[in-house]
């Protein structure tokens, strides 16, 4: 079957496509196919259901092509935020003891590694609720790149908008610690367009687009955000919970963690809505996943250049070993949100809604 045969010049094309992907673009073959779909009178492909197709047909826009974007990101190392640098205390009999100050004899910021007591305290007493920046950045980067490719494809077919953008978090087990996004949607062109405008992304369906349009609103962009938060109880809380396991009790750090995650996601969405010059966002959907993980504490000195012997402020030599092997077990909360930013046009029409009561059995 010639249908399935692969040509000779495949390798050169593959290399070219690879270079384009590394620059954040789309492969050559996809670009060629989409260009062809963008010309007048050519075939169209669309992921629109027939109902959406009919509504859009009535409204004017016509579908051009189904567009997609994909990105697979391998996440970097994730550490917990470092402890504050340890404080150095002097006994009053020490020859190096400074003069007493109104705040006491402690000197700030002499020693760049957490002290043993700090580490012990951290392990036993401090609840940790913090954002995991590397993982957050990985999710946002994967989605950003996938959406950029989708946008690039829409640009190639000369679309005015992409409706029904669907985010799909990949679940292929392509390797440890990979984050994968596949986004797809249908590129449409408005009736009197030149095909040279910047495409607009939105996750509303054809029906929702129709309703928004009719009531005087217009979608201005797709907004999405992800935040990853780590919540871990200290050892003493865990011991306490084990002892009082028959009692009802709140898991404070988890509650705080979820709250922090929602807050951060919402703040990110708001910023994106403002960037898109929208007046609000509709259809925002939250989803989250929680799994347990053990994370190590990032030392305050991640770079190797800080390791070794140094001279302190008083001429005291001190050594930075870089090894504070503290690990915390806890929950990693990954919170995603996606929606469409809309802008209210000057004169929003009030839609007249009829109510209906079906008399059937269901």
């Amino acid at each position, binding site marked *: 079957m010639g249908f*399935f045969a*692969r040509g000779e010049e495949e390798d050169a094309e*593959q290399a070219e*496509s*690879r270079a384009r*992907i*590394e620059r954040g673009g789309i*492969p050559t*073959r*996809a670009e060629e*196919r989409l260009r062809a779909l963008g010309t007048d009178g050519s*075939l*169209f*492909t*669309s*992921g*629109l*259901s*027939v*109902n959406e*197709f*009919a509504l859009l*047909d*009535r409204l004017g826009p016509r*579908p051009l092509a*189904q567009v*997609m974007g*994909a*990105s*697979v*990101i*391998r*996440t*970097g*190392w994730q550490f917990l935020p470092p402890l504050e640098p340890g404080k150095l205390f002097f006994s009053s009999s020490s020859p190096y003891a400074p003069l007493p100050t109104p705040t006491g004899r402690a000197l700030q910021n002499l020693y760049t590694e957490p002290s043993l007591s700090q580490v012990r305290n951290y392990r036993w007493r401090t609840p940790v609720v913090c954002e995991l920046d*590397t993982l957050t*950045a*990985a999710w946002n*980067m*994967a989605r950003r*790149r996938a959406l950029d490719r989708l946008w690039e494809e829409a640009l190639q077919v000369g679309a005015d908008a992409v409706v029904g953008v669907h985010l799909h978090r*990949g679940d*292929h*087990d*392509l*390797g440890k610690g*990979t984050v*994968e996004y*596949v986004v*797809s949607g249908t590129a449409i062109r408005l009736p009197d367009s030149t095909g040279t405008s910047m495409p607009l992304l939105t996750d509303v369906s054809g029906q929702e687009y*129709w*309703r928004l349009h009719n009531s005087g609103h217009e979608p201005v962009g797709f907004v999405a955000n992800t935040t990853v938060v780590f919540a871990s109880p200290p050892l003493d809380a865990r011991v306490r919970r084990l002892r009082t396991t028959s009692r009802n009790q709140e898991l404070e750090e988890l509650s705080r963690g979820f709250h922090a995650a929602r807050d951060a996601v919402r703040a990110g969405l708001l910023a994106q809505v403002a960037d898109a010059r929208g007046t609000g966002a509709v259809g925002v959907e939250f989803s989250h996943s929680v799994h347990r993980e053990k994370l190590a504490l990032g030392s305050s000195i991640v770079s190797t250049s800080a390791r070794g012997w140094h001279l302190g402020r008083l001429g005291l030599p001190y050594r930075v070993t870089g090894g504070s092997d503290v690990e915390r077990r806890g929950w990693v909360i990954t919170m995603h949100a996606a929606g469409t930013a809309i802008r209210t046009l000057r004169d929003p029409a009030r*839609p*007249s*809604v*009829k*109510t*209906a*009561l*079906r008399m059937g059995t269901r």
Partner: protein
Amino acid sequence: MTDYDPQSLEGIPQSGLERLEQNREGLYTSDLSVNEFLLVTEAGFDPVGLVVGSSIFHIGFQVAGPTTSCELTVLSQAMYSARHLAMTRMEEEADQLGADGIVGVRLEIGRYEWGQNMAEFIAIGTAVKHRDGVLHRAPNGRPFQSDLSGQEFWTLLRTGHRPVGMVMGSCVYHVGRRGPLRTISQTGRNVELPNYTQALYDARELAMQRMQSEAQELEAEGIVGVSLSETSHGWGSHVIEFFALGTAIVPTGARTAIEPPIPVLDLNDP
């Protein structure tokens, strides 16, 4: 695929022929719901019978180097030909009933315990015929197939289009692993894995291209309701099947614009 003879009935067993003979006498079966039935009838079509096609296929195997990203043509062909066989058999049944086409086609893959590398591909749908004998077949003379429900069929006819066939494209792709040197050199940072991204893109490109060329063969104006699915039918995590399925449509010219919809709030409890 070889050239198809529209009169051919070779894929259908004897008992099937008898059942179809009964259907032709006026009795029909259909898996349309009552609402679908009413709408299909309103659109000027009558159901003539439930048609099925099935094919049990032995899927061969293919080995790809661990770090190469490539299409697994043996598996691709298996998935493609098996679905094609099932759909063609269904079409032959519809043809024997003298139907114009098939609506509500469902394509399913069944796996059984008694066959390790076997899969049953089943296509089920309801054959319909135009009441006044207006020919609605595809340009090549075969009955059209569509996965549209009765409601969607009605709406589509209202927009001045009609289905001409179900088009599909499938591609089984092996996503190469990364070499160890590359893995080590990139540790610690968030990096994109271009070979995985490219593999996903390639697989989709091949599937979409195949679907498009099928639609072009049918001289379609476009394809609606494309569903893209990625599955790995138990072939391991690095082998994925990209499957695109949609309905090719052509304009009929008989365009009756749908009435402006009225927003309705349903007061029934869900």
